[in-house]
């Protein structure tokens, strides 16, 4: 890599006051034609381009991003990474990603700040307890680390949790995945962008796709705000806007796009050294390296592309946070935002070919796509390059909505969607 980051490059650049670092990726104008176009320059799209170039040796690729890279859901999620999903297909998919996360900073020569601080999921009623125990067993059969904790063990692992039996949703137990954790979400997009750019991928920002040109059942190219670009294969990784792109190609997808909200507090000293998720009361909390509490709320139940979300959703989440962590009662929240998530009826993603030749979709990640970024890119690259799914994403095809072979992770996936 021509601009390898290391202690030596850091010292060298210190002499010029860090003003002469080379740009991590270029700003090219689109060429007339590419072998593959990726629509969407978030983590998943950039990872797809990276693995297409690296593992499948296809270099003539462009990533088209309507805004700036990582400015969508990649920069809006709560950065949680875990693989403790119930079903075998999901376990395979998410643990594939987790294994890549474990070596990602080294592979990209870019610090994605992956921190295996553990993710704990709480049970608040007897059905939660049964579901979480069942999922723990399923995880272990699939080789995924998982332990069930009783109330005392939950308290020991995260002492600031209120485990009093008198609260509205008492903590009856929980599960812990120690290999799970968080990563710096922006760095993931930037690291993949830098890696892809290095191998010759064109990353084209401020380039919105306006139409998909089809010749019968084959794609011919896309109309964009920077003109028409010819191509044989299009990989759509547009998250909440997947249906918008699908409609351009004359397809419908089994998706609904909804606002999902998150918020961060003012920064404080280290107080919570893990990630705690609570399905029943819909409150997720962790602490960023800057010291902010990162809090995830729920989705609104109506379709919206407004990136706002309703106040009552945030209020409900903060009610739960305050009951579970009374110590946070005087924290002030700094920012609140929404991202538009594309939710499948079975709460599992789609990484699939379509009825149009050369048109591929990677979508439906719903409320939990960030954790899968490296695996999703790797498997989608495989699917596009070979025109066939990898065995790990074969179950996540579009045809499952016809065959009925759904991967129903609703509720079973340790979070409500």
């Amino acid at each position, binding site marked *: 890599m021509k601009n390898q980051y290391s202690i030596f490059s850091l010292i060298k650049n210190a002499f010029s006051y860090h003003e002469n670092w080379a740009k991590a990726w270029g700003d090219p104008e689109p060429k007339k034609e590419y072998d593959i176009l990726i629509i969407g320059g978030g983590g998943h799209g950039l990872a797809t381009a990276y693995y297409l170039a690296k593992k499948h040796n296809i270099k003539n690729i462009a990533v088209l991003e309507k805004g700036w890279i990582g400015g969508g859901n990649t920069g809006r999620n709560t950065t949680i990474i875990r693989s403790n999903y119930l079903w075998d297909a999901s376990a395979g998919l998410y643990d594939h990603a987790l294994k890549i996360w474990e070596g990602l900073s080294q592979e990209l020569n870019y610090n994605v700040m992956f921190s295996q601080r553990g993710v704990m999921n709480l049970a608040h009623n007897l059905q939660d307890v049964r579901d979480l125990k069942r999922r723990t067993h399923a995880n272990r059969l699939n080789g995924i680390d998982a332990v069930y904790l009783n109330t005392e063990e939950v308290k020991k692992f995260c002492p600031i949790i209120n485990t009093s039996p008198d609260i509205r949703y008492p903590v009856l137990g929980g599960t812990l995945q120690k290999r799970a954790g968080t990563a710096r979400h922006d760095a993931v997009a930037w690291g993949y962008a830098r890696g892809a750019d290095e191998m010759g991928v064109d990353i084209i920002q401020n380039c919105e796709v306006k139409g998909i040109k089809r010749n019968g059942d084959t794609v011919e190219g896309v109309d964009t705000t920077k003109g028409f670009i010819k191509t044989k294969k299009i990989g759509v990784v547009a998250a909440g806007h997947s249906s918008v792109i699908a*409609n351009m190609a004359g397809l419908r997808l*089994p998706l609904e796009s909804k606002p999902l909200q998150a918020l961060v507090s003012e920064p404080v000293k280290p107080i919570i050294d893990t990630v705690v998720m609570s399905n029943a009361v819909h409150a997720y909390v962790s602490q960023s390296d800057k010291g902010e509490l990162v809090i995830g709320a729920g989705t609104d139940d109506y*379709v919206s592309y407004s990136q706002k979300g309703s106040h009552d959703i945030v209020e409900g989440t903060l009610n739960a946070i305050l009951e579970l962590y009374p110590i946070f009662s005087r924290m002030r929240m700094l920012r609140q935002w929404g991202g538009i998530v594309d939710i499948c009826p079975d709460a599992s993603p789609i990484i699939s070919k379509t009825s149009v030749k050369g048109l591929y979709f990677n979508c439906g990640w719903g409320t939990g796509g960030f954790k899968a970024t490296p695996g999703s890119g790797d498997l989608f690259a495989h699917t596009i390059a070979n025109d066939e799914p990898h065995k790990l994403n074969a179950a996540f095809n579009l045809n499952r909505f016809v065959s009925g072979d759904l991967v129903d992770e609703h509720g079973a996936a340790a979070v409500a969607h």
Partner: protein
Amino acid sequence: MFLINCPFCGDREQSEFKAGGEAHIVRPKQPTELSDDEWAEYLFMRKNIKGVQFERWNHVHGCRKWFNVVRDTSNDQIKAVYKMGEKPPT
């Protein structure tokens, strides 16, 4: 966050309502004769429009009646509200 003008109760906060998804999806007349593809279209495939969308809402914390709403999903502005069975505005 927005107000919805329930045709039976008047303006109320959106949090009083339950969204019922895309409107005017017609239930198959002869379910036994549907192919798997047609079932998938009916059950799962959605327009999921960014822009003006026709949808169903239920005033769950009010009169509990269903009705239709025309809403711009890009900014949550409501264009029209009409009762079930009424002709959608154009």
